[in-house]
């Protein structure tokens, strides 16, 4: 596999060089002549980039949930407990507790987004095939090692994909692109849930036990080969576009790590992190353990259990862009977030304490998950400054992964020792923490006159006002007065009467 990667690298390098040689004489002309479908500024070119951005995440999400789709097979064929099985998810999350901090920095400052995507995509590919090999040779520790390597690439590939999306679509259709990317990713998750077990059953007619499991995982890994192919194509298209368009500056997604910024972050960011951890740790580990739960509690057939277990992702694939569009039109993100958490608590309550058709609760959970994903993450941009976004998202992802790493193990142990009812109570407890954090965020935001619960019109008015004041400050700075405060020299703008920067709604 490394040889193949090296060949592909050389191929990309040669193609880039050839393209550069051919395109160089026409660079000036390309700016002035109407753009064709192969021009980077053309719609067709951008659509190809969009498709590749979406497909790059497809394989990653498909393979991430392979263990969930094959939960009982892994437990039986590898003879492991639920706790050991959940380690496969935990080992994905552990490296990302640290790596998320540095991945963006690594991409921004050292290797760039193109090589970053290729490198992290490669780690995913290698990690998954080690994981499959572990199953094939009946060595669970090899599987664990594979998932660890897979984890090294997983979240950072997402950072690189985000960087591509921002580079190509910032200021035009970024929200839509992000939504579509998430949708295609979730299609990967859904496909995984609905194809891996039938694939295993098909192979089980010829092979048995861990051999069958290993072969199934090997075949599942072909989606990562597709994703890796996309990273090479994206690198080539991006390089070509850069050369042809010659942008004045290239900003790689703003995923910069600036440790100095951390001290300036408002409390609201940490409350958002708490919401994020509380919520996602009640969703992802639940999906990881859901298959057996649906079979044992509701007596569903494996096929229907798979369908149900993938329903959250299915609804998310469809609902995320729609709800994102709605939230873009209404604002008031925090109310959407509180609603999403409340609905999820009710859904877990229904699953834990009743025998109501589980499709009802899981559908609610799917809608709520889409609602939260569309309302929570944009809130970060409303509470920190633009240049701090990378660090803020890095912290959020790291904390989320820490939560997932810890609670994946806890969830598995709870199922082994105390069953699914206690697990549901545990998830409801986590969601209550999340809900409490959201309530505190609401109060904090009200107190500091924040943006989180403003309608879109109010947000726009606030942004306009801030712009006007910023312009005013710039004007005043020209004739500003120098003020010495506690040993620091600052320049204070002089505001005209009735123009103090005090805004309230």
């Amino acid at each position, binding site marked *: 596999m490394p040889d193949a990667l090296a060949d592909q690298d050389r191929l990309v390098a040669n193609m880039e060089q050839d393209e550069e040689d051919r395109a160089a004489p026409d660079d000036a002309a390309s700016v002035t002549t109407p753009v064709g479908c192969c021009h980077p500024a053309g719609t067709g070119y951008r659509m190809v980039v969009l498709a590749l951005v979406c497909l790059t995440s497809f394989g990653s999400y498909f393979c991430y949930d392979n263990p969930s789709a094959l939960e*009982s097979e892994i*437990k*039986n064929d590898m003879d*492991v*407990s*639920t*706790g050991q*099985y959940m380690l496969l998810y935990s080992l994905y999350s552990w490296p990302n507790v640290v790596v998320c901090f540095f991945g963006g920095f690594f991409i921004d400052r050292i290797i760039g987004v193109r090589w970053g995507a290729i490198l992290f995509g490669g780690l995913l590919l290698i990690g998954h095939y080690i994981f499959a090999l572990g199953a094939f040779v009946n060595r669970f520790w090899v599987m664990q090692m594979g998932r660890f390597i897979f984890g090294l690439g997983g979240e950072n590939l997402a950072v690189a994909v985000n960087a591509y999306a921002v580079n190509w679509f910032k200021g035009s259709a970024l929200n839509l692109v992000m939504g579509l990317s998430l949708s295609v990713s979730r299609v990967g998750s859904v496909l995984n849930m609905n194809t891996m077990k039938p694939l295993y*059953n098909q192979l089980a007619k010829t092979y048995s036990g861990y051999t069958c499991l290993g072969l199934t995982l090997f075949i599942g890994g072909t989606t990562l080969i597709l994703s890796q192919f996309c990273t090479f194509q994206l690198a080539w298209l991006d390089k070509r576009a850069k050369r042809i368009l010659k942008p004045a500056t290239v900003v790689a997604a703003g995923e910069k790590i600036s440790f100095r910024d951390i001290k300036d972050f408002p409390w609201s960011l940490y409350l958002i992190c708490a919401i994020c951890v509380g919520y996602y740790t009640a969703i992802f580990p639940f999906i990881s353990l859901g298959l*057996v*739960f649906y079979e*044992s*509690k509701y007596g569903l057939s*494996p096929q229907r259990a798979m369908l149900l277990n993938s329903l959250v992702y299915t609804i998310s694939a469809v609902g995320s862009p729609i709800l994102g569009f709605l939230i873009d039109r209404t604002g008031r993100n925090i109310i959407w977030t509180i609603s999403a958490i409340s609905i999820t608590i009710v859904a877990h309550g229904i699953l*834990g*304490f*009743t*025998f109501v058709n589980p499709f009802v609760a899981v559908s609610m959970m799917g809608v709520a998950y889409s609602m939260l994903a569309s309302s929570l993450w944009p809130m970060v941009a409303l509470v920190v400054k633009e240049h701090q976004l990378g660090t803020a998202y890095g912290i959020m992802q790291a904390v989320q992964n820490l939560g997932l790493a810890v609670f994946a193990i806890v969830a598995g142990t709870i*199922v*082994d*020792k*105390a*069953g*699914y*009812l*206690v697990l549901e*109570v545990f998830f*409801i*407890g986590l969601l*209550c*923490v999340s*809900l*409490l954090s959201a*309530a*505190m965020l*609401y*109060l904090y935001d*009200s107190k500091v006159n924040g943006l989180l619960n403003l309608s879109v019109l109010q947000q726009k008015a606030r942004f306009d006002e801030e712009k006007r004041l910023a312009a005013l400050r710039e004007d005043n700075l020209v004739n500003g007065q120098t003020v010495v405060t506690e040993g620091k020299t600052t320049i204070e703008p002089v505001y005209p009467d009735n123009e103090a920067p005090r805004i309230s709604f």
Partner: protein
Amino acid sequence: MLRFGLVSLVFLQVFSNDGAEAYERSLNVSVDPGCPEATTCGATSEGYRPNLVYILSQSTATPPSPSVSNPDPSYRILWSTIGAPTVLVTEAPAGSDLHLTSDNLKWMEFIEDSKHDPSSPFLFLWGGRFAGLTISKLIEFNDTKSIGKVSDSNATFIYDLSSPTWYPVTLTNEPNGRVDGTFKGLLTSGGVQRNLTVIMSAFSTNDRTAMPPHMLVTPSLVTVRVILDNLPVHFERSKFALELIYASNDASNTTANHSVERSTSDQYSPGVFTVERVSGSDTFVQWRPVVYTSANPGVSDSTRSTTSDLLNITMDVDRNHTDTGMPYSLLQGLAGLTTTNSNTLVRFNVSFGENNDGYYNTSKYQEWLVEVGIGRAPHDTVTKSLKWVIAVALGIPAALLLVGALYAAYVKFGRSRLEDRTLLVKETTTVTNYDSVNQ
């Protein structure tokens, strides 16, 4: 571990954990009671023997006054491998003789019955309710469709459990007041000999079984754990099933019903949300439909069991695996069981395994537990501790949210009204000043 002699006695005194209704209860255990001293009680020269364990479970609390009878009844419990392994639980009527004597158990009837075809009953109970269960057959079947359910179309290999030779019972006295009897039977197949293990337990207090599925137990029931460890198989896709015979003198209903009760709580048996029950109105046999495939199982070390329809026992028919009469056992020798119309007597199969879970050879170990008792079957519900956790986990955030909501409402509406009122006052003051200036 305590090995009992021919007649031995153990006395346990424990406190029930039923709170206000706690009574001291003792378990008096004796092996082969009433056996004539001149005989070997059926033991063979090879050391095999029919086993009979008699347990008297009595409340030892002193009634509040001599005129008040003890509200906690006594139970007689019989474990036997006279023929097929059998358990019997009976409620002792007030004032009855609590000892098992030769009047109750006619030892010579079955000791001299070498053909295992007794001509007359040899067990006479004392009256009162009883519930009994006999494990009459172990059925190995070729599950070609991998559905985990034995039927007439399956190729089978039958172990008739009324015929194997049994080792002497081993009794253990656990600190929590539980008494276990371990019965090992020798199964012979094609020159290969393996053991079938049946562990019967009686309890002096309300508790849970120590091993999964941790079912609720009471002094008025007996648990029977069947362990199939490393048995030889005769088919490529072998699975096992047990044929069970349930008997009771249910007063109000002679028809036993098979029911499946669902529970939201799987706290003590992770991943198992149902209890299956064959019962009348005040006797029962119940089990969780789970078969463990490891001696120390986790959630993944298990498969399901499937229960067949209930069938009536017909005494006159042949004894193949699909249709049988009463096998040689303690139940067969029970006086009046088949001649009294008010008694319940049914048989059914419980198959081990489910669709696509592999076959017996995958684990070579299966373990299943069933309870037999009188009175109301214990029902598992959400435990108090879990209710507390739920109350705290939901209550505190709910209270804080309520406070937060009230505060937010105050901030949004209360404060703005206050400000409006202040503005009005200022406006009024201004007008007043203006008027005063005019004046």
